């Protein structure tokens, strides 16, 4: 099954994979080859990709995504999102610090615009931290 992760900044991933676990509005779903055609909404969270059938959980590849649209057909899985970061690019300590900064900004926000921005940052870094956490747990 082909997996494409498409953002405004370009195509992040375009490769053959065995299984993809996606966060959707109705909960997490796992997509395998031959899945029935489906169009659904992705919510901010972590995507996990299993490249080959026999791969163990510690070989899963993770991506932190913001919200988007998922399009599943027999042979191809397209994920259209605003932002996507590969788990490998995320440094846990940095994400943690960034999340704390964002939380602080949210608490200290004086107007609606700042609050909105802080909320977005909190979401974004919370997702990144989750991805870093998942990676660490499975690598051990």
């Amino acid at each position, binding site marked *: 099954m082909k997996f*494409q992760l*498409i*953002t*405004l*900044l*370009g*195509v992040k991933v375009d490769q053959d994979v065995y299984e993809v676990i996606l966060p*959707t*509005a*109705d909960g997490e779903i796992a997509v395998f080859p031959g899945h*029935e*055609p*489906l*169009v*659904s*909404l992705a919510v901010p969270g972590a995507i996990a990709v299993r490249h080959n059938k026999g791969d163990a959980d510690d070989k899963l590849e993770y991506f932190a995504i*913001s*919200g*988007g*649209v998922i*399009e*599943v*057909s*027999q042979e191809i899985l*397209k994920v*259209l999102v*605003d*932002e996507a970061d590969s788990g490998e690019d995320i440094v846990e300590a940095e994400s943690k610090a960034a999340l704390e900064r964002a939380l602080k900004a949210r608490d200290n926000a004086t107007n609606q615009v700042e609050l909105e*921005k802080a909320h*977005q940052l909190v979401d974004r870094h919370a997702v990144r931290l989750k991805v870093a956490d998942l990676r660490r747990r499975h690598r051990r």
Partner: protein
Amino acid sequence: MASTQQLKGRIRSVKSTKQITKAMQLVAASKMRRAQEAEKASAPYTRAANELLTHLASQGVTKGHPLFEIRDQIRSRLLIVVATDKGLAGAYDSNILKLYAKQLIADDQAGVKNETITIGRRANRFASRIKGTKVIAAYQDLPDDPAGSQLRAIVDMAREKFEAGEVDAVDILYTEFITSVNQMPMMQRVMPAGYEITEVTDEIKEALFEPSAEEVLEAVTYRLIEAQVYHALLTARASEYMMRMMAMKNATDNANDLIDDLTLAMNKARQGAITQELAEISGGVEALNE
């Protein structure tokens, strides 16, 4: 005639100006390439969103959706104008502002109310002096690759205005990069939303929509509008750098011509001074011999 000292000073100053314009030319060239690449990279996203929308529209889901509502009479309009922050890009700003002014005049004559979101300091400086429009937001110093959050702030504001019925249409004015010698100011309607009709694979036709077709439509439409605005911003940036590169190339060429002229004048002045001195010396010798 100016003295050789003065001419030397002027040559030096023109030379240092030339170094600056040359450097700006090179910087603009490399930034332009990057903006163009970023613009190309967003194409798959736009294509995928278009494909989904075409399909959704063929199922009739777009009817009645607020973002697709085409209103019979346009009574007020929101313009998003993209210009530069610092100018120095030849006719770039004046071209886009000319198009903007034309739109304002047209709105004025048709009795359409007008509001503006400006992007770039030059656009804001121009729009805020005009009585016919109200600047509701001004963005400046946007980076070359605007992040999702900045883009969303612009799109959200336009969408709120549109859905609340405060404006009946939203247009974006930007400079399209057509070829390296041709950059055209253009206007595109972003709301009510439209889409290009593309081929739809059979598989999507049978697809299930979760949670519902309407909710998917909402998300896709929003992303397509975002992609349109993103395209406008990036192609405008590429045009800006292209025109800045040309403007700086002309400036560098002019500086070269100026240096040549000044060098010639300086050499003439120096030779003139030498000839004069020689004449004085030989005059003196003649006088001694007598």
